[in-house]
């Protein structure tokens, strides 16, 4: 505890006394003899002291009575020496790590051993592989944290800590930088989340610049995060930024990377190469070239591949030859063959350049760090690029011995073009390429012939070309989609805080902090005239402001064997989100002109202005006894504007304790044990309501001429809402053996979230689609286990191994008013639900009838469907949860002198994913499995009477194996989704991935000394290089539409992206 005070005092200020003698010396590390920078040197029994500079040197004026100097550094043993000048003090690494300090809630540094809850830290291995959305870099490295990465450029990362706690509300972890909340909103429309199309604009926390991150602490349970209040119920990602270091002169570091990205072909469908365009076997015939004879014309209007068998001797006119404005190709006849270039040739090699320069320095009065980063990225599809600039400044200054301040400001600007359209939408090239396509259409042709000489789109999917209708019937040319119908967006963001500390007395200080997170963003989307949808231009403008003011009184006292700390704080939070979304209506007037005024009908505008506030008070007291027993008590009271005034104030407590088992005398004798701790905690967190969910509103629709048109809001408000509550209990055991060579950390937890505030779907016969309720309970029980070991440490060679494993069991205990199912979303025959007694996210749809566990067919060889008592198909069979059974990660670092190899394998077991792509890809005869030979060696597409067709892998009702072949030669036959229950397209989402690989080399200090640099390192990095195992056909089981609660439906899924490149860091 004294150390904490000492550190605190150091930060607060360094006092200078009169009548002094001056001493100086150096502090070095016992490990390598290198200087220890920033070590604390204190005059014992006083607050007088300093820290060592970049060469480990210190100089100090001693008060008259001073005798002993205390030398300390985080993670090293404390050394006391008699004060004299010229001392060279060697600090040894503290294997019992009793001094390990971690960052906890509100940015308070605490001794890790004193904590009664689980905090996991990530430092060195955080950004090995240079992930631009740093959230993705956490995947697989921390137990209890599940991250789902988007396969789109700049897409959202979904981050869940210890499971889904809210039915319908936000389940994403909270982000905090240096103790200050930072927004992680997702502006994606519900359409994007539901897979109905749009763009994934990413999660706002991706603005956090990974180059400025020093370390990350992950607060998983409510006890750890309770001081942050409501928003921390889903766990907290605490980011500590890099700060300037006290040193001689100016430290400069430069970090440059170049990464290449490419589509992982194993996550793309295989296209059949035997049959071409059509919903059946036919062509059209007309005289296109005017030679008096009819040519054979490809049915361009069919977006399927059930057509005529390829035959190079047959000459056809395809879509390229049907554009009368293309004088060269009009009427040209080409052999009827499969496309040479298919979906696999569409994706390009992307590249990402990142450059960072940071300057830092400081002295005993203060420190500073300036950093500038540019990341520019080109995606794997045409016309996709992102550019991000980030400038950050952090500084601290000690005005007097008692008054100090520190501040951090960062500005981010990003400008992006051509994000990937998602979901079942023409904006997503995968809708045509991966679901509805003709196997004869060559990607190179699509690339070459995009726009006709009259300015119109050229597409393979002409409506009725023989009769002159060359407009796209269903699909755009994917290059038109990418190059003409593109989006662009940008964001300017300023984040910063100022923190002032005043030391009232050696043991008590007052701290004030003001912070703001302010950004404005803009999104523009286009659908050009001549596309397959009504031409449209939309603009979305949004500003977000969050301000927080905190005032805290902190005290530390030691009474004999007892140490105590106290914290009292108040805070005031205000959020204002204002947005305007407007779009053209009825089409555009002038082609290629994207302006809201260029609208045929009056534009549609939606304004939103959301203001909410929370006033809070909080307190935290800790007691420690003899470095053996610790107890933490905290409480917070919130008054939140979004709740009705009768229920707007709510209190929640937490209590946690820990016992350092290794201090027990019986265990002290057990030499292999270095450290062991048992911890236990209980906490509650309250949460308010979304803004404006308590009042009654009317929705305004477009005017009918000059008449107003309003309707009742489709969501029924609830004026009696009360706060939500999450209660959690957690126990943990951690231990190290053989001087940290082996260690583990085990946590068991149970979290119950009750009285959830949510809009639930209700019978529309009630007059509303949804109503806000305050009901239900969801439980998360889990085990987190992390294990680390250094199996080999010989000579200069070290192998560090880390394993983490998480099992979270989620269960919906109750919903509301006896309702046992809440629909989260549905599309066609699949729905995602909350079901009583089941884990979060149950897929429902039609299912097979099973006989002895095997799918059952009727006498005609067609599948039987599970039915209701009245004989209709059951549309609500439980097809499994989208949540994994367990997740884990295994990482290994092999280092030899300056050379280090890092490998991370990320594992997810279980959970389901439904594939719309697969359903349509086979129904349209596009995928490889729909062609080729059946098990009799006859073409599947031949008639059953000729030995063709396929038979389902099933049994008859009597249990005998199915031997009936059915036709599989055209749309609507054996591969059709009307013949096959939903369950067919539900897959196991397990995966094992080689997530990260990096090989880095740091040039030895001895060699560097001869250069102007202080440190030189280079690394070769790779991400998502190999999906070692998956059970899904083609697509990546990790695929998702967006971050959020809607998961487990793959629709228009992009291939996952492999990243490979190198990185160079220089310091001087």
């Amino acid at each position, binding site marked *: 505890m004294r150390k904490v005070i000492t550190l605190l005092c150091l930060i607060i200020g360094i006092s200078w006394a009169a009548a002094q003698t001056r001493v100086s010396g150096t502090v070095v590390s016992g490990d390598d003899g290198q200087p220890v920078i920033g070590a604390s040197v204190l005059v014992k029994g006083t607050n007088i002291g300093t820290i060592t500079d970049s060469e480990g040197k210190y100089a100090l004026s001693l008060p008259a009575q001073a005798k002993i100097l205390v030398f300390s550094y985080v993670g090293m043993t404390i050394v006391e020496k008699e004060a004299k000048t010229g001392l060279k003090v060697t600090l040894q690494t503290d294997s019992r790590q009793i001094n390990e300090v971690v960052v906890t809630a509100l940015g308070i540094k605490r001794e890790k051993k004193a904590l009664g809850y689980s905090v996991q830290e990530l430092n060195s291995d955080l950004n090995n592989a240079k992930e631009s959305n740093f959230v993705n870099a956490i995947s697989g490295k921390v137990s209890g944290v599940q991250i789902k990465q988007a396969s789109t450029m700049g897409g959202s990362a979904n981050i869940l800590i210890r499971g889904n706690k809210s039915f319908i509300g936000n389940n994403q972890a909270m982000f905090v930088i240096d103790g200050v909340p930072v927004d992680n909103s997702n502006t994606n429309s519900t359409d994007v989340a539901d897979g109905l199309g749009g763009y994934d604009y990413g999660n706002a926390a991706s603005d956090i610049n990974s180059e400025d991150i020093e370390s990350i602490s992950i607060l998983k349970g409510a006890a750890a995060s309770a001081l942050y209040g409501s928003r921390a119920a889903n766990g907290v990602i605490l980011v500590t930024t890099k700060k300037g270091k006290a040193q001689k002169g100016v430290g400069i570091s430069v970090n440059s990377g170049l990464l290449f990205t490419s589509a992982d072909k194993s996550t793309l469908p295989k296209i059949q190469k035997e049959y071409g365009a059509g*919903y059946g076997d036919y062509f059209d015939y007309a005289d296109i070239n005017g030679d008096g004879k009819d040519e054979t014309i490809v049915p361009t*209007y069919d977006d399927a591949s059930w057509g005529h068998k390829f035959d190079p001797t047959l000459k056809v006119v395809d879509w390229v030859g049907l554009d009368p404005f293309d004088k060269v190709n009009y009427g040209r006849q080409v052999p009827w063959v499969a496309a040479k270039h298919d979906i696999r040739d569409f994706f390009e090699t992307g590249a990402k350049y990142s450059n960072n320069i940071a300057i830092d320095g400081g002295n005993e009065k203060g420190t500073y760090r300036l950093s500038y980063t540019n990341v520019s990225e080109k995606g794997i599809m045409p016309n996709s690029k992102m550019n991000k600039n980030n400038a950050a400044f952090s500084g601290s200054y000690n005005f007097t011995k008692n008054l100090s301040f520190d501040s951090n400001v960062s500005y981010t600007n990003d400008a992006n073009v051509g994000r990937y359209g998602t979901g079942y939408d023409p904006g997503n090239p995968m809708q045509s390429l991966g679901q509805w396509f003709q196997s004869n259409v060559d990607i190179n042709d699509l690339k070459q012939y995009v726009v006709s000489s009259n300015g119109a789109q050229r597409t393979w999917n002409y*409506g*009725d070309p023989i*009769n002159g*209708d060359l407009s*796209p*019937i269903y699909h755009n040319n994917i290059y038109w989609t990418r190059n003409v119908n593109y989006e662009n967006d940008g964001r300017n963001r300023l984040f910063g805080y100022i923190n002032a500390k005043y030391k009232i007395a050696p043991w008590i200080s007052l701290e004030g902090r003001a912070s703001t997170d302010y950004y404005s963003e803009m999104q523009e989307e286009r659908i050009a005239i001549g596309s*397959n949808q009504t031409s449209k231009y939309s603009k979305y403008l949004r500003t977000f402001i969050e301000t927080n003011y905190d*005032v805290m009184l902190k005290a530390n006292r030691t009474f004999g064997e007892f140490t105590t700390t106290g914290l009292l704080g*108040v805070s005031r939070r205000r959020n204002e989100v204002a947005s305007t979304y407007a779009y053209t*209506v*009825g089409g555009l007037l002038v082609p290629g002109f994207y302006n809201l005024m260029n609208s*045929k*009908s009056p534009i549609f505008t939606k304004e*939103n*202005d959301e203001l909410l*506030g929370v*006033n809070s*008070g909080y307190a935290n007291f800790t007691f420690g006894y003899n470095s053996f027993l610790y107890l933490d008590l905290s409480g917070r009271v919130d*008054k939140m504007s*979004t709740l009705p005034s009768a229920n*707007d104030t709510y209190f929640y407590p937490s209590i946690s304790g820990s016992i350092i088992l290794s201090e027990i005398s019986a265990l002290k004798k057990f030499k292999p044990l270095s450290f062991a701790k048992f911890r236990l905690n209980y906490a509650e967190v309250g949460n308010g309501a979304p803004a*404006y969910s308590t*009042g*009654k*509103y*009317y929705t*305004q629709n477009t005017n*009918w*001429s000059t*008449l*107003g*048109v*309003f*309707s*009742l*809001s*489709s969501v*029924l408000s609830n004026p009696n809402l009360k706060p939500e509550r999450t209660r959690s209990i957690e126990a943990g055991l951690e231990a190290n053996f053989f001087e940290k060579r082996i260690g583990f950390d085990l946590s068991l937890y149970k979290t119950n979230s009750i009285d959830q505030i949510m809009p639930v*779907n*209700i*019978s*529309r*016969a*009630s*007059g*509303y*689609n949804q109503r806000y309720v305050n009901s239900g309970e969801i439980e998360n029980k889990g085990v987190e286990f992390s294990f680390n070991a250094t199996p080999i440490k010989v000579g200069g060679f070290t192998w560090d191994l880390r394993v983490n494993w998480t099992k979270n069991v989620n269960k919906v205990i109750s919903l509301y*008013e006896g309702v046992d*199912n809440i*629909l989260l979303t*549905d599309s*066609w025959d699949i729905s995602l*639900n909350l079901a009583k007694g089941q884990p979060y996210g149950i897929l429902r749809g039609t299912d097979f009838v099973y006989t002895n566990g095997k799918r059952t067919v009727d006498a005609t060889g067609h599948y039987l469907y599970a039915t209701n008592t*009245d004989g*209709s198909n059951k549309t*609500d069979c439980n097809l499994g949860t989208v949540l994994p059974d367990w997740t884990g990660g295994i990482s290994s670092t092999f280092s030899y002198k300056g050379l280090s190899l890092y490998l991370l394998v990320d594992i997810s077991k279980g959970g389901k994913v439904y594939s719309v792509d697969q359903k349509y890809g086979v129904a349209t005869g596009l995928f490889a499995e729909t062609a080729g030979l059946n098990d009799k060696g006859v073409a599947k597409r031949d008639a059953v009477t000729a030995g063709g067709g396929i038979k389902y892998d099933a049994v008859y009702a009597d249990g005998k194996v199915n031997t009936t072949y059915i036709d599989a030669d055209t*749309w*609507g036959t054996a591969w059709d989704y009307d013949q096959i229950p939903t369950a067919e397209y539900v897959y196991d989402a397990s995966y094992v991935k080689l997530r990260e690989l990096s090989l880095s080399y740091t040039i030895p200090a001895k060699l560097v000394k001869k250069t102007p640099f202080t440190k030189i390192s280079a690394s070769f990095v790779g991400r998502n290089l190999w999906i070692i195992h998956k059970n899904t056909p083609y697509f990546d089981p990790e695929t998702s539409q967006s971050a959020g609660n809607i998961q487990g439906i793959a629709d228009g899924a992009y291939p996952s992206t492999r990243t490979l490149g190198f990185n160079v860091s220089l310091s001087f």
Partner: protein
Amino acid sequence: MKTIIKSFLLALVVVMASCDLPNNIDPKSATAVTSDVLFTNVEISLFNQIGSVNVNRNVFRLLSQYQTEVTYVTESNYNFSDRTLPDTHWGILYRDVLANAEETKKILNNTLFTDKQELKNKLAQTEVLEVYAYQMLVDAFGNVPYTEALQGDANSRPKYDDAKTIYYDLVTRLDKAITDLTADAGSNTFASADVLYGGDVTNWLAFANSLKLRIALRIADVDATKAGTMITQAVASGVFTSQDQSAILHYTGVTPYVNSYYTEYVLNARRDYVPSNTFIDKLNSLNDPRLTSWVTTSDYYGGIYKGLTYGTAGRYSRFSHFVDGILFNPTYPVIISDYVEVEFLLAEAAARTLGGVTGAEQHYNNAINASMTYWGVSSADAATYLSQPTVAYTTAPGTWKQKIGTQKWIGLFDRGIEAWNEWRRLDYPTLNPPAGMVYSDIPVRFPYPYNENKLNGTNYAAAAKAIGGDLTSTKLFWDKY
């Protein structure tokens, strides 16, 4: 020291207590509106749903076989679950139409009117639309929530009421509206906000009586006595006497207030439906001159009118299409009740000798002539048509049911919902079951919303049991034959 702690505690109290929180009222949503703006919405929502050709909203033109799907023949083959069509139809009627109508009435009742007749008229206008919407619900599903419906918070899981009981209560409500609708001096109705009639009470009265006439004949097979009384009353009070009075909404032509054909075929460039063989073959066989107004000829089949075999896939370009100058016009109107329909109803009343109506043939002719005129056919051509033995009332084949049923089906062209209703009741014309199906597979009922099972399970199950199963083959109470 103490002062600092004291001042800190004081600051705490100040922050918690006196620092005002923002209020929780959405500045960008209206908290109070006039009854006018809601009433306009009720009218538009009702017409939009009835007129829609969006495959996600309204597939009744497939059920009545005016048209069929070209490629994706799922709905033509009576699979409605893929797009949860019943949920949409039900949701729009309950929420967009009925809930807003109830809210309109609530606001009216809370408004002070110096002219009491104004309140009565406005309530009655709203009530007629509510009765219309409820009849649509009953006709589609059978038993539906009624007494416990539209109660919002008070009951989010309303029980279903017996279809016939609802029907009879609708008649009572309609009667009250008819009594209340009174024209007097001054504009004391929903006037400009009434985008259907501009507040014309006479037209509203005719619409209400015409609706009453429709309901009367709908129950004629099960309760002829009541039907007879209702017919007498409706005719005496005044049903539509010309197409000018009909309940037809003309769109402004400015998106989103454009006809749904325009949205789908022109704006969205879809080509999902063509006229079915059922429709074109029937009209071809009768040499119907309205064909020219409705559909194009097929070049592929040598310039004839050619429909695609109902329920099978085919190529859009090969078959007759709807005439784009008429149906794809953004202002192409939606009919929910018209003079043509009224004359057919009167013809049927006469044929059934109900309500003192006579002259079945005259009414039959009036109906056909009115339809011809509406669709721009000359009176000479209409006369030629009517003079054919296959058409003329006296000589046309079959019973009155077949004669009226067939001609009414043609006269109700493009009004999928009403055409399907009347086909179920009159059992003519003979439709074509899709390949692989039999005649009895053609739905005679719309299945309940798939979500009702999940959101209102107990009541759903009870209702399904009460009507004889939530099946498309379960007949409604008025569908006796």
